[in-house]
């Protein structure tokens, strides 16, 4: 019978990504409720050493597939190995990250295993021993409680939502064969074009300072950049600002952009159209700065400032500079 909680750890360039630790911690919490084991699948080349770190965050056993074929990530190669390890070990629950890679991989693996997958979950629990995944739908306008009729029950977890807490376990390495038939791989990565801005991606940022139509133009964003710099955050934008050509598509937060959940989200000159609110309402602390006191963004904000953002933000940047010094 299917037993235990398994995660698929994610690494890039030989370092575990933060979501892997969030997965490990969440899996540990679930497994402790049923007295089960937590295992992880870790794929890549020259990455065996990362198993120790997974152990620190609560993983008992790490299935390491160390093979040149696993680097860089190619869907079909990874999905084949993950599905094989899952079938051989029969976990009751399988968790992945709802990162770009995790979303790509989880759906392919779920199809291979003919099981159900809940994407981008913000909570998971055991209800009378049954796994229930809770996830936003309609971009957070409502939530669904998902149950799965096959095993393993699969879920991908939204980055930045689940805490990563140390809880040392063995992290024992079990080597698995990660060789794949090269002829079966039809895709090839020709080039990796790294973003050289040095900014954290919106979906992984702890702090996001976002601007909307109220920024009046691309120049207006410079004061947001300064505030973001002080708070070690990333600048985002509403659809209005992106459609106006003031910011790039990759910076858009909302139902047709990125769904984010930072610790702190500062919305500047954003009225709060429902499609924007949908993309940021799982943020832990929301600040709205807007001169229109009736703007819907204030209904989601923990703190609101009704004033001219071009006056408030430079002052706020100065205040924050002192606070974080």
């Amino acid at each position, binding site marked *: 019978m299917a037993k235990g909680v398994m995660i698929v750890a994610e690494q890039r360039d030989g370092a575990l990504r933060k979501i892997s630790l969030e997965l490990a911690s969440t899996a540990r919490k679930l497994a402790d409720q049923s007295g089960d084991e937590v295992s992880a699948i870790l794929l890549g080349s020259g990455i065996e050493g990362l198993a120790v770190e997974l152990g620190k965050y609560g993983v008992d056993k790490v299935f390491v597939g160390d093979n040149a074929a696993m680097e860089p990530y190619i*869907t*079909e190669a990874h999905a084949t190995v993950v599905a094989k390890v899952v079938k051989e070990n029969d976990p009751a629950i399988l968790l992945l990250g709802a990162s*770009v890679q995790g*979303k*790509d991989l*989880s*759906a*392919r693996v*779920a*199809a291979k295993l003919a*099981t*159900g*997958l809940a*994407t981008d979950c913000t909570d998971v629990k055991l209800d009378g021993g049954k796994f229930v995944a809770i996830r936003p*739908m*309609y*971009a957070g*306008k*409502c*939530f*669904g*409680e*998902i*149950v*799965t009729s096959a095993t393993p029950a699969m879920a991908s977890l939204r980055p930045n939502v689940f805490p990563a807490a140390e809880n040392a376990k063995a992290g024992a390495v079990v080597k698995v064969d990660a060789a794949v038939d090269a002829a079966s791989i*039809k*895709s*090839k*990565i*020709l*080039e*990796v*074009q*790294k*973003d050289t801005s040095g900014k954290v*991606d919106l979906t992984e940022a702890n702090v996001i300072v976002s601007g909307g139509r109220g920024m009046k133009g691309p120049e207006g964003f410079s004061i947001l950049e300064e505030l973001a710099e002080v708070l070690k955050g990333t600048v985002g934008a509403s659809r209005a600002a992106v459609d106006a050509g003031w910011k790039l*598509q*990759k910076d858009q937060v909302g*139902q047709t952009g990125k769904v984010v959940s930072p610790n*702190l989200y500062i919305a500047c000159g954003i009225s709060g159209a*429902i*499609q924007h609110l949908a993309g940021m309402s799982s943020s*832990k*602390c*929301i600040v709205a700065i807007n001169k229109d006191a009736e703007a819907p963004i204030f209904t*989601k904000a*923990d*703190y*609101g*400032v009704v*004033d*001219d953002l071009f006056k*408030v*933000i430079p*002052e*706020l940047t100065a*205040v*924050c500079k002192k*606070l*974080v010094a």
Partner: protein
Amino acid sequence: MNIIACVKQVPDTEAQIKVKADGSGIEEGQIKWVMNPYDEFGVEEALKLKEKNGGEVTVVSVGPARAMETIRTALAMGADKGVHICDPAFDSADAFVVANALAAVIKTLPHDIIFCGQRAIDDDSGQVGAMLAEALGLPQLTLVTKLDFAGTSVKVIRPIEGAQLLIETALPCVVTCQKGLNEPRYASLPGIMKAKKKPVDVKDAAAVGIATDAKAKVAKTVPPPARPPGKIICGDEPAQKAAELGRLLREEAKAI
């Protein structure tokens, strides 16, 4: 080229979503239905490929009777024919069932490239493209923002966190479309007239011939958790308000 574009009808992004009192789903009465915005990118890319290389674009959709409007929209944009998989048995379908239904139909059609939206903005699952690729035994390229056709392969740009990848994949393959790929055209009036005469094949579950039991079920739909009411920061001057906001973020919210 034989090009397939998969489309889904979804509530408009501005739609207010109200959960049914018994938690069994959402109230559909007031909703304006539109083509999933990410699927529009797929239809547009399909049409661009056809215009450049010749061939035929087939739109395929799983959905209730009203989804026919969305198929007609794609035909009005310029697609040649449609397949509408329509049966109450698919009402509670999950991504796995939908992908298998699409695959069953697409297997019977010649296909060089298949477009899907990267996700539908209703259930936000983002699974169908990858599951369809698996069901067809094809490679998948998800979240594509640029596509160049190179005869027997495509070269695409796929953004990941903090980078973008240039990937080459042999055809046939499944591509899921992200915003940025193109600017979808509007249907012209002559296009809308022509669309009325284009063939749409309607298939029920028996004709598709797959199991329709969902693997993942939405056991309950609930409204989003309520946020406690926020504080409006008082003060006479912007500087005063900024100082108070900074203090609250530091001391109360512990956010900085």
